[in-house]
């Protein structure tokens, strides 16, 4: 049966068909749907971990114990998990271990662009790359075979465009039977205890493994030559293969399904048969550099960009500039003069609880060291309330450093609930231990919101829907020795302000848990109730517009005295959070209770 699947869905299916029974991950765009698709499949165990390093350790443990296991993360997740990635390469595993790294060219939802094939080479781990969903599914199976044959973890690298494009996939059935009896744990300390003596003995084994894998790459069926017109030969990988086929239908192509280690003889042979050799690969000149090391003349990044994502147009335009295609190949584009257009960047949703907290940090003129999550968007005007964002968990350490360096203003760390569990906890411990007085605001919207509502250790549910302990931030903070701990409702502007003022008035480290469910959670959606503006009271002062809610727009009606447009609330967007109603100085925005009184 054929089905339209995203690359992520195909990987989940491939994992199930390959007999993966244990998978672990931390949500991260563009990888999140892999575990969400895998978790409900029959006979599997899957979990969200607090971070990618823990997820990879869990998968490694499962593979040590003889179960095929998979860890899934976005590209920067592998930075967090890098320690584990390297030791797993050194030890190998008893059963197959695959690490899915979903890279994000063009940073659709990331803080930096990085090419994780560098990690594969760095840690001596083979790297496979699919060019569509069918290959994404098939390469999972190939990855497990390679992992077990060569005693190595295998990286399956996707990019956003593979992860989130839907293409046809032929579904198969699981190959592997469940183990009837749990096996005994096989103890092999020389292989699995990486103290210097053992590690020194392992390193040559790893180098030898890579040499064997390089020979294997020569016959790996997903490295494919398609000979056509020999005037141009294109070496390509991943989704760039699709662009190569579309833009250069006549060219000869060497498609690499395994990009580390490379099939050197195959490349040499291909290069010898074509007049001009180019590499078409997104991000780093990874394949290109390896080909140069073979002493072969090749062009790559001199033609195609390092930054951003490819598409047929980028590839075609650059190819025309480089003389690879005639000028007549250019696609006619008509660019009319549009006049200025207001941008529509991602923004805090209507009803977002973070908006209320940012309103107060602005009022108190705090410098805010932020973190990764929906609330990062608080940096945007009109609130412009968040002033740094680097990586997961950075806020608390950065805020501590800022405070230790001493500035005139007071500062606060702002971090989401899931991000706090991810890497915020050690940083908070550091603030306490080193006698910082930073205020840490945990924006607890009861979910991992930005990636699409995943559970985390604070929600009381696991990935597979089991009820579990709901860890409380207040308890953690107190256990770390913090005495100033407040819990407030993020929608209650007065309450948030009182808590912040109390924290500012004392000199120790403080934690405020600003709690309110994400407005998009299904149980909250059911309570949406659009507010209304009393047009007679509104004088167009525009104070409410400063909270930056998309549901609040300028009405067509102007105030007679001020001549300014009154406020209007779009009933299709408003959730009834009442943040704007609290901000309005003229009581012109009706609270929920008043709506009922007014007959709705």
């Amino acid at each position, binding site marked *: 049966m054929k089905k*339209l699947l995203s690359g992520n869905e195909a990987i989940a299916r491939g994992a199930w068909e390959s007999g993966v029974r244990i998978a672990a991950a931390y949500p991260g*765009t*563009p990888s999140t*749907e892999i575990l969400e698709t895998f978790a409900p499949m029959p006979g599997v165990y899957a979990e969200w971990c607090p971070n990618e390093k823990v997820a990879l350790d869990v998968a490694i443990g499962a593979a040590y114990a003889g179960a095929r296991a998979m860890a899934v993360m976005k590209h920067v997740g592998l930075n967090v998990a890098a320690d584990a990635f390297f030791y797993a390469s050194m030890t190998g595993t008893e059963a197959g271990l695959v690490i899915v790294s979903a890279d994000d060219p063009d940073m*659709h*939802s990331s803080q930096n662009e990085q090419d994780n094939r560098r990690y594969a080479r760095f840690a001596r781990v083979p790297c496979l790359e699919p060019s569509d969903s069918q290959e994404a599914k098939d390469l999972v199976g190939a990855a497990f075979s390679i992992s077990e044959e060569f005693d190595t973890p295998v990286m399956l690298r996707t990019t*956003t*465009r593979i992860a*989130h*494009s*839907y*293409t*046809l996939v032929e579904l198969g059935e699981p190959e592997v039977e469940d183990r009837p009896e749990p096996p005994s744990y096989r103890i092999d300390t020389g292989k699995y205890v990486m103290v210097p003596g053992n590690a020194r003995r392992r390193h040559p084994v790893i180098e030898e493994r890579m040499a064997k894998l390089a020979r294997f790459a020569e016959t790996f069926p997903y490295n494919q030559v398609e000979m056509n017109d020999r005037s141009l030969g294109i070496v390509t990988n991943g*989704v760039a293969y*699709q*662009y190569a*086929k*579309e833009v250069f239908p006549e060219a000869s192509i060497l498609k690499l399904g395994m990009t580390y280690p490379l099939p050197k003889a195959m490349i040499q042979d291909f290069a010898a048969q074509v007049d001009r050799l180019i590499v078409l690969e997104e991000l780093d000149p990874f394949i290109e550099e390896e080909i140069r090391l073979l002493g072969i003349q090749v062009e790559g990044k001199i033609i195609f960009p390092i930054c951003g994502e490819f*598409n*047929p*147009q980028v590839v075609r335009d650059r190819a025309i500039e480089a003389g690879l295609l005639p000028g007549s190949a250019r*696609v*006619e*584009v*008509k*660019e*009319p003069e*549009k*006049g*200025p*257009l*207001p*941008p*529509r960047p*991602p*923004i*805090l*949703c*209507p009803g977002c609880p973070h908006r209320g907290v940012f309103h107060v940090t602005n009022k108190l003129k705090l410098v805010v060291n932020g973190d990764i999550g*929906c609330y990062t*968007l608080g940096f945007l*005007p*009109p609130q412009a309330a968040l002033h740094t964002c680097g990586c997961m968990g950075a806020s608390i350490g950065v805020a501590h450093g800022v405070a230790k360096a001493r500035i005139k203003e007071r500062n606060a760390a702002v971090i989401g609930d899931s991000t706090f569990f991810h890497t915020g906890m050690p940083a908070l411990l550091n603030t306490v231990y080193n006698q910082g007085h930073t205020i840490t605001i945990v924006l607890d919207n009861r979910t991992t*919101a*930005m*990636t*699409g509502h995943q559970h985390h250790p604070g929600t009381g549910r696991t990935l597979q829907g089991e009820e579990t302990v709901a860890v409380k931030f207040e308890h953690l903070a107190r256990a770390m020795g913090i005495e100033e701990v407040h819990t407030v409702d993020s929608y209650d502007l007065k309450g948030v302000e009182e808590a912040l003022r109390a924290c500012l008035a004392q000199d120790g480290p403080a934690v405020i848990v600003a709690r309110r469910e994400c407005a*998009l959670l299904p149980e909250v959606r059911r309570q949406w109730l659009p507010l209304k503006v009393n047009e007679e009271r509104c004088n167009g002062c*525009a104070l409410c*517009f*400063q909270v*930056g809610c*998309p549901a*609040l*727009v*300028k009405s067509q009606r102007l105030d007679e005295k001020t001549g300014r447009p009154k*406020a209007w609330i*779009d009933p*299709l*967007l408003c959730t009834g959070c009442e943040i704007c109603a609290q901000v309005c100085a003229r009581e012109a925005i009706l609270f929920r209770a008043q709506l009922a009184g007014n007959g709705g």
Partner: protein
Amino acid sequence: MTKFDFLLVGVGGQGVLLASDILAEVGLKAGYDAKKAEVHGMAQRGGSVVSHVRWAEKVLSPLIGRGEVDYLLALEKLEALRYIEVLRPGGTVIVNDHRIPPVSVSSGGDEYPDDQRVRRVLSEVAGDVRFLPGVELARELGNARASNVVTLGALSQCLDVDLDIWLEVIAERVPEKYVELNHQAFLAGRRQL
């Protein structure tokens, strides 16, 4: 080679992704190869959303290059304007006549373009520009949020695909209790063009 390249644009929360799901699946059922590309992440609602859907005997790139889109389907007017140059000169634009001003219009100095400007600019590129009151039609049927399917219904008039296929895919893609509403929404849009 017969090919149909669609770009669907709108604002997060309007149902661009559901509309593109349906469209891709209809392509498959009509006997084409189909691919669909979209980007998740960042804000859930309120940002600009784009989805590429391609039908052909064999589809290669999941993304459509600029100037190659045959049908631009816009669930919001400003977004139609934002993406118009993706359209093949002479191609078709179908616009849900609905306005969602970005926050920079209320809190900053930005202006939402007026209808005259929207129509003029779209006509400079497109051979065929169709506006339909998707939100009003959907509201009349009882749920203004079905304007995505109304707009899809309008698009269906431009394509030679059996009505039954559309209705079947819609029934597969929406929760059971909303099938009737979405069928009505689709037909209302279909009658508009």
